[in-house]
Each structure stands twice: as C-alpha cells, then as structure tokens.
C-alpha cells in the first residue's frame, strides 16, 4: 500500500464521468492522487517580505509570526537573504528556528557589502495542527553586522503520506492500489478515504500577510492619534471554499506592548469593508487575542481571480494612549474556520 503524493498536479477529466458509464479504475487512481496532492502539498506560512532590518555585529534579531500549522507538515524551510551592513565585510550569521532554541546553523561564507547572500534553514517542528507562534533568530558576527533583506517560510512538500494508520485524525490519504482494484463502488479504503479528504482535509492557503521586525527595534507610536504602519494598502485575497462564497474568514493578531495605559492597532480593507480594532494593554510583549475578519475570496470565473476586477487592499494603523505602543509583528493567516 502506498499513499504517494505526485510532484505535479493530476487533472482528472470531468468528461469521463457520465450516466451509465462509471469512471474507470484509472480515473479513480487520479482522484486518489489528487486527494494525496491536496494533503501533501506544503503551505506558505510567511509570504516573503523585505524586513530591511539592520542587525549589528554581536546582536540578535528575533522575528515572530502567528499562524495555524497543518498536521501534515514535518519540516519547514526558512529562507531569505542578508548583506553586509557596511563596506567592512567578513560577517557571518547564526540562525535558529524557533528563535533562540532551534538547532544552530552558521552560515560561514564572508558576506560582502551590497551583495545579497541567501540562506536556507530547515526546521523540523513537532507535528501540530494548532494556532501557534513560529519564529526565527538571526545573530550577526563580524564586520558591522548585516541587513536582513528577505525572509519567508514554507512547509516542505510531503512526497509520501504515512503508509499505515492515520496521520491526521480521521483523515487518511487514499491507498492508491485500493482504488485500482475497487472501481465505481463505495469502499471505506477507496471512496471513503477520498470523501474524508474532501470533508475535512487540510489544504489551506495559510499565510495571507505577515510583517515582523526585531522586538528590540519595533515600530512605535507615542500618544494618541493613528499613524499608518504601511506605505500602501497591501493586496490580499483568500481562497474560495464553497460555491456561493464571496468572502473568506481569516484571523489576525499583533505582537505588541505599551509603556503604560493602552494602545490600539486597527486594520481595514478597501473592498470587503473590514474595520477591526484590537487593544494592547500588556507592558511586556505578547500576542493579542486572535480576532477574525472576512476578506474577499477568489472569483474563479475571472482570468486573474479578482472579484469584480478589484483588489482588496489591507491597511493598518496604530496609536499609543498615555504611553507608547511598540509593535513587533502583524500576522494575518487563514485558520480554516
């Protein structure tokens, strides 16, 4: 028995399904492959962005993101690039994920000024399908430090799902051989397995927008009066689930603190009409309670997926109160709700 995940997506033909002529076993085989593809394809948790974060020699930057991981993920890839902060080259970086506790990897090549130097770090987290923080720390040594130019994070694809038993609660990827020998009739190890993937399999588009900086160098605002966090609204779009859906529920949270009193972070969207505010009252960094909003979802009848040809633009602003608010991360992700 095998639950292999094809590297390229199968595309079974709908025209092979017609009344009086049930689909053949080879068609069922493709249905099974496609179900395994849904479960095995990795998610992007942190869509790549440009931190433009300077990390001095001897200093460590901790970057934190909130997401809901998939139960199928066994490894995560953190990737990005750095460059020397000045003409003084010879700097190296130490990377750990989770921040400060993960396996240490040193990238020893001398990093030259104005030359972006890529790094790829593989994390093997405990399997989990829960909302959680994922994080990375980067320490610079030598020269005058580095500038972190790019950062992103995705789950590694699964070439094969577990052969025996169930990895995802009641959901299992189909045994492909079972589909070969049992065509066009109900069967718990054939049709039933595909149906369970369709009902509750986790193939989410996860990361919607992530922005984080070092919690030692946060974005700050003293006193009341909102100020924009972003230069422009950022285009966002959720995946579409059921036929009549026009919106997609996504979750958001910020990693922030205030020096005293309370502060606020507010997000809004241009097309789906979101206006949602969270209050920050902790004097130590903490994630705020997760909130849910509804953004536009794709319209798959259009060439670019945009509903009405319009992008849903997300804006964010924040303010202090009697004190100063310090904001180190804004996370927006799809938790599948």
């Amino acid at each position: 028995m095998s639950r292999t995940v094809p590297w390229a997506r199968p595309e079974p033909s709908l025209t092979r399904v017609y009344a009086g002529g049930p689909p053949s076993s080879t068609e069922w085989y493709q249905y099974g492959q496609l179900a395994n593809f849904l479960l095995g394809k990795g998610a992007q948790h942190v869509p790549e962005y440009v931190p433009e974060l300077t990390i001095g020699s001897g200093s460590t930057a901790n970057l934190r993101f909130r997401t809901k991981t998939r139960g199928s993920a066994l490894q995560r890839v953190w990737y990005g690039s750095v460059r020397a902060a000045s003409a003084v080259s010879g700097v190296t970086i130490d990377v750990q994920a989770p921040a400060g506790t993960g396996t240490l990897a040193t990238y020893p090549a001398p990093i030259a000024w104005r030359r972006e130097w890529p790094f790829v770090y593989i994390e093997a987290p405990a399997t989990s399908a829960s909302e959680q923080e994922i994080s990375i720390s980067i320490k610079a040594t030598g020269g005058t430090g580095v500038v972190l130019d790019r950062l992103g994070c995705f789950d590694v694809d699964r070439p094969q799902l577990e052969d025996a038993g169930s990895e995802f609660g009641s959901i299992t990827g189909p045994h492909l051989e079972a589909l070969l020998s049992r065509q066009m009739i109900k069967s718990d190890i054939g049709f039933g397995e595909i149906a369970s993937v369709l009902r509750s399999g986790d193939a989410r588009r996860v990361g919607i927008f992530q922005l984080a900086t070092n919690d030692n160098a946060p974005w700050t605002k003293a006193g009341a009066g909102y100020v924009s966090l972003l230069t422009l609204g950022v285009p966002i779009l959720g995946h579409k689930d059921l036929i009549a859906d026009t919106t997609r529920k996504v979750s958001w949270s910020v990693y922030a603190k205030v020096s005293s009193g309370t502060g606020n972070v507010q997000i809004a969207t241009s097309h789906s009409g979101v206006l949602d505010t969270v209050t920050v009252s902790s004097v130590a960094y903490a994630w705020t309670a997760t909130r849910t909003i509804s953004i536009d979802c794709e319209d798959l009848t259009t060439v670019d997926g945009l509903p009405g040809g319009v992008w849903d633009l997300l804006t964010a602003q924040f303010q202090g109160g009697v004190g100063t608010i310090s904001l180190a991360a804004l996370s927006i992700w799809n938790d599948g709700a």
Partner: protein
Amino acid sequence: MATSTLQGRVRTSTTESSGDDQPLDTVVVKDAIVGSLLHMADSHVAQVRVAWIAPNTTVSGAQGYIVPPAYGTDTPVFLSAFGPFPIPVRASGKSYRLRVRVAGSSSGGAACKFYVCMVPAGSPVGRTDATELTDAHLTTVTTVSSSAAWLAGTSNRNAYNNVIEADPARVELARRVFNTIKPGGATISGERTEFQIYVFGSTANAGTSAPRLHGLVAQEYVG
C-alpha cells in the same frame, strides 16, 4: 480559469461514503468528488508566495524602497530577487500562474518601467536580462509618479494582465530532487519545482530619475 465544474467545493454527507459495495451516483462522482478535488487544487492549495509593502518610513526609520546602485537610460537593471519557493505544476506541464502586483515610483518624474519575471531558481541574472524581458512570463508596468503606487501591468505574450506563468521548458529547468523526512524521521526524497521572481527596473532618463520598488505581491492562481 477554474478546472472544476462549479468553482467551489460541494459538501458530501457521511452517509454517501459509508456502506461498502454500493453503487455511486454519477452526479456525486462528478460534482462532489471530482469537481471538489479539482476546486481544492485550484484555490485552496494556491499559496501567497510574496506579500511585501514597505512599512511607513515615519514609523520604521527605513528607506522604504529598493533602488539600484547604478543604472543607465532605457537599460533594465536588476532590482531584487524573491524566493526560491516551490510553485506547483499543472497537468499541462505549465506552472500555476502567479497573480502579480508591483508598487513602484520614479524618483524624478521620468517614466520608469518595472519587469517581473518568474525564473527557475538560481537562474543567472545576466541571462535573465537578455531573454526574459521579451517572454510570456513577464509583466511590465510603467510610472512617472514620485509617489509609491500599485501599478497596472501587461504580460507580453498573453492576455492576462498581472498574471505570469512558467512554460513546460522552464518548469523542467526548475525541477529539483530534495530530501525530507517521513514520520519517525527516516529520510525520503521527493521532487518539486523551485522558482524565483526577479524584478528589474529601467528609467527613461538616468540623469533625473531612478526606478524605486516599494512592494511586490505574488499569489498562486491556477488561472
């Protein structure tokens, strides 16, 4: 366009999947099984690979854009590389499309153009410069404004504005074998396609204006 019939997932009840050896209804198979599988592969699986807009410079203290250190008039120069990330492949051999948006500005009022290419990971920038700028998996956008704005683009060889893709030849160049683990930690190898997005910029007047990149969004879309 979508590959499913109904552009959405069709719910199935547990009773439809219980009871061994019973015949299946054609509509159940077509809409609820095949159609739903195809829809989830169309929309659920498609990930957001890049979502960057520079933070407001007044709160971040950062420059807020990427500008080339040197540039000439009407000569595309490399601005930035994103990735590598694993882009799924369709049954046709082409990659999933990327829905792209670029935020840019011109520092001095002369027309500045931005080019977005989807290339196999590790492609030499020089070669990309020479060949990719006239190819289909490219979108170009132009601005004369000194204020950052999301710019509308057109792909060179297809009708899909703001949407790019890799053809089967480039998919093959992007195909990589990788090692990962199975539950329990044993090593297993697999295959995936690794792509990068390269962004180039050019200016109509190098004496007055530089192309400035403020943001990029790239979302997978089966198209």
